[in-house]
């Protein structure tokens, strides 16, 4: 009789433990380490990448003397606004620290481009080619970073 009671009691404990464990698991059944995938963010990264590339290609078609800061100023501001807007979109998403940091680095390099151009009032082919390659790699990294959240 006593053995039967112990056996029943053990079974009952196991059952309650299982119920407790399942309640815990069902209430927290998934982990999330990165933000939810956002296709609009990925498309925006690709759109800005296209604008930046167009800006560099247009400058390569010009002579060095034609590449004044005055000519490029409007474009610098437009891309700066686009990158700031993308940063806001990234900042309001939870678990998105890496993408925020990527966006900040892209903005940092863009502002550096603008300041260097303003200071020298010209840009060489070598600088344009180098920066074109750098931004291409940055935007690919950002787009891949978003895509992998899917």
């Amino acid at each position, binding site marked *: 009789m006593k053995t039967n009671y112990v056996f029943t009691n053990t079974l009952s404990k196991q059952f309650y433990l299982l119920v407790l464990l399942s309640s815990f698991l069902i209430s927290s059944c998934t982990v999330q380490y990165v933000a939810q995938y956002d296709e609009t963010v990925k498309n925006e990264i690709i759109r800005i990448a296209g604008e930046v590339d167009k800006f560099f290609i247009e400058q390569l078609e010009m002579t060095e003397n034609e590449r004044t800061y005055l000519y490029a100023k409007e474009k610098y501001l437009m891309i700066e606004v686009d990158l700031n807007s993308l940063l806001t979109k990234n900042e309001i998403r939870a678990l998105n620290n890496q993408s925020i940091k990527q966006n900040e680095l892209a903005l940092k390099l863009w502002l550096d481009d603008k300041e260097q151009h303003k200071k020298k009032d010209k840009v060489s082919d070598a600088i344009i080619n180098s920066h074109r390659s750098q931004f291409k790699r940055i935007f690919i*990294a950002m787009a891949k970073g978003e895509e992998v959240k899917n």
Partner: protein
Amino acid sequence: MSFNINEVLNNMKTAAFDAVKDDVHVIPDYINEIFEGEKDALKILAEERLAGNFTDEEFLHELEREKDVLETQMLTIEIMTLALAQKAINAAMDVLIKAISLVI
């Protein structure tokens, strides 16, 4: 219905593996892509410096910018790693929850 912990753990392991087996190559593939791109970029920078198209100051400035490019790319590796871990853990937990649901 009994709860066989060894069987459940094996199924969890299989589920975790299956969830990421088609995607796990993206990390080494992208690391290769990063360093191939960096090799090309540094080669061009060195050639331009030797050709006199960059001053020393510009050359050093470009190297500093390359560090920021690399950091951006490494952040993508971090996101890839976290996303894969998330996928694997959630697949394993799904198996565990289903196994528990069957016995209660």
